[in-house]
């Protein structure tokens, strides 16, 4: 069957859906918005207000500065927690991927913490670090660090042996080997892990803030819930989704800049 088809037919379908997907996604989003509006108006319940009401609330909360101030606080928590996680992910992950003994010593614990519900540690941070920014940063760390450690370790382990051998044959020392060969070669996979870590960091930020409940978007969403203001809850949720999508997009932007050398065929498979 396939032998009869012209050779071009094989590559063409790969581009077609990509060109169509964006409009279709937009159509789908628009339909969802209309549906939300209609159901919200028809239901008339406080916990599911129509989209227009949510947008109006969002505009009002933005105008009085409630959103912006808390958003900045939240972004600060996110940036700090994510930066610490990223540093730990790169250092610990590289060490685990490169040295058998480090992997033996830390492997099981890292995997356990990766799968464990990270928020259980929040009460511990609360009692040790107090109800401040450091507790929230610690929660963000628990959410995002381990996925980055694990993917970095995997990525470093999968660096082709012949590249390492080549660098050693030119007299590379351990530092040169890691910085000039191993990390660049591992970077596409590492960045895939960083993207996951960023998504988890946003979750950690909100959950941490909701638990500690003194600062940020997490606090105002809890407050809005306590005062039964459904529109405000959804308005803040929209902001949180925007933060999540934007921060993941940021990682993807950096990814494209750093790993432009990866052939397209290899990229599609991951």
């Amino acid at each position, binding site marked *: 069957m396939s032998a009869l088809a012209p050779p071009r037919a094989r590559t063409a379908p790969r581009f077609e859906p990509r060109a169509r997907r964006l409009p279709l996604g937009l159509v789908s989003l628009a339909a969802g918005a209309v549906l939300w509006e209609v159901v919200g108006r028809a239901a008339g319940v406080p916990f599911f207000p129509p989209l227009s009401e949510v947008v109006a609330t969002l505009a009002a909360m933005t105008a009085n500065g409630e959103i912006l101030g808390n958003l900045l606080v939240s972004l600060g928590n996110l940036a700090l927690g994510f930066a610490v996680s990223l540093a730990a992910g790169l250092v610990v992950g590289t060490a685990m991927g490169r040295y058998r003994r480090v992997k033996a010593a830390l492997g099981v614990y890292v995997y356990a913490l990766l799968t464990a519900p990270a928020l259980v540690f929040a009460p511990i941070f609360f009692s*040790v670090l107090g109800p401040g920014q450091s507790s929230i940063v610690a929660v963000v760390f628990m959410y995002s660090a381990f996925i980055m450690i694990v993917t970095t370790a995997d990525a470093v382990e999968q660096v082709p042996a012949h590249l390492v051998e080549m660098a050693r044959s030119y007299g590379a020392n351990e530092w040169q080997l890691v910085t000039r060969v191993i990390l660049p070669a591992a970077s596409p996979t590492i960045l895939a892990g960083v993207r996951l870590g960023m998504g988890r960091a*946003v*979750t950690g930020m*909100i*959950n941490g803030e*909701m638990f500690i409940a003194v600062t940020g978007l997490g606090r105002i969403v809890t407050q809005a819930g306590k005062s039964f203001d*459904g529109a405000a809850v959804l308005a803040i949720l929209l902001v*949180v989704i925007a933060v999540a999508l934007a921060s993941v997009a940021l990682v993807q932007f950096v990814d494209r800049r750093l790993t432009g050398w990866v052939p397209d065929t290899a990229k599609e498979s991951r």
Partner: protein
Amino acid sequence: MTAYPTRAPRWKRVLDSDRSYRLLTFAVFAAVWEVYGTFWGGLLIPTFTETAAAFADLLRTAAFWDALWVSNQALLLGFACAVAVGVPLGVLLGRFRLLERLTDVYLNILLVTPMAAIIPLLIMSVGFGLLSRVILVALFAVVMVVVNVRTGVRQVDPGLIQMARSFGASERQLWRDVLIPGALPAIMTGIRLGLGRAVTGMVIVELLMVSLALGGLILQFRGTFNAAGLYAVIAAVLIESLLLIALAQRLERLIAPWASTHQQGKARR
């Protein structure tokens, strides 16, 4: 560079084994905790041994087992709902391109949305009861199940489908003999990851929403400054979640032993 013995002496190999490094890490962690708790811990940080003792005590109290049961009710029901809804939905999305393209945006958004933020809405709508806990656990797990099942169905080798068609397989036979077995590893992966998310949902619900069951115990111990008790409950939650996830992994290997690890890596978040 030259001659070195290929086999180290036995004691050296035992000491250099993975297990000894693993134990060493735990020993160092426990020792540092013990020393820190003893000298700088004060009222808020118990020592390692105090926590271990409190954990042993906790296992002997009826209140703990009651709390565990109440917590797991929500987990069980919510997770069952997530699988019952998620697997068929994922299969549909994997088989029909148009449906998949329409829902792709929403799944991508849901994957990055912190579900905890809808807790206030849940309380407003269905209150503090079992139902809201079940809904939240199900919401946590279902996205993961759908996404992985969808990927699994889509990844089934098109060559196999053509092969089955060439033997005259009907759509029903195609499903029974090719698509479902082919997607089974990914389905199991989705169920395992979904269970992990369900456990997370259970914990979050109790910490952020309802002060009952295990989460209630945590808040109660915190209120009475029973630090060792607090840490013991947290340890119990951790242990339970790790046991459940290990169980799911065992089950996955039992049902779909040919599942390759790289496939899991691709679909997981």
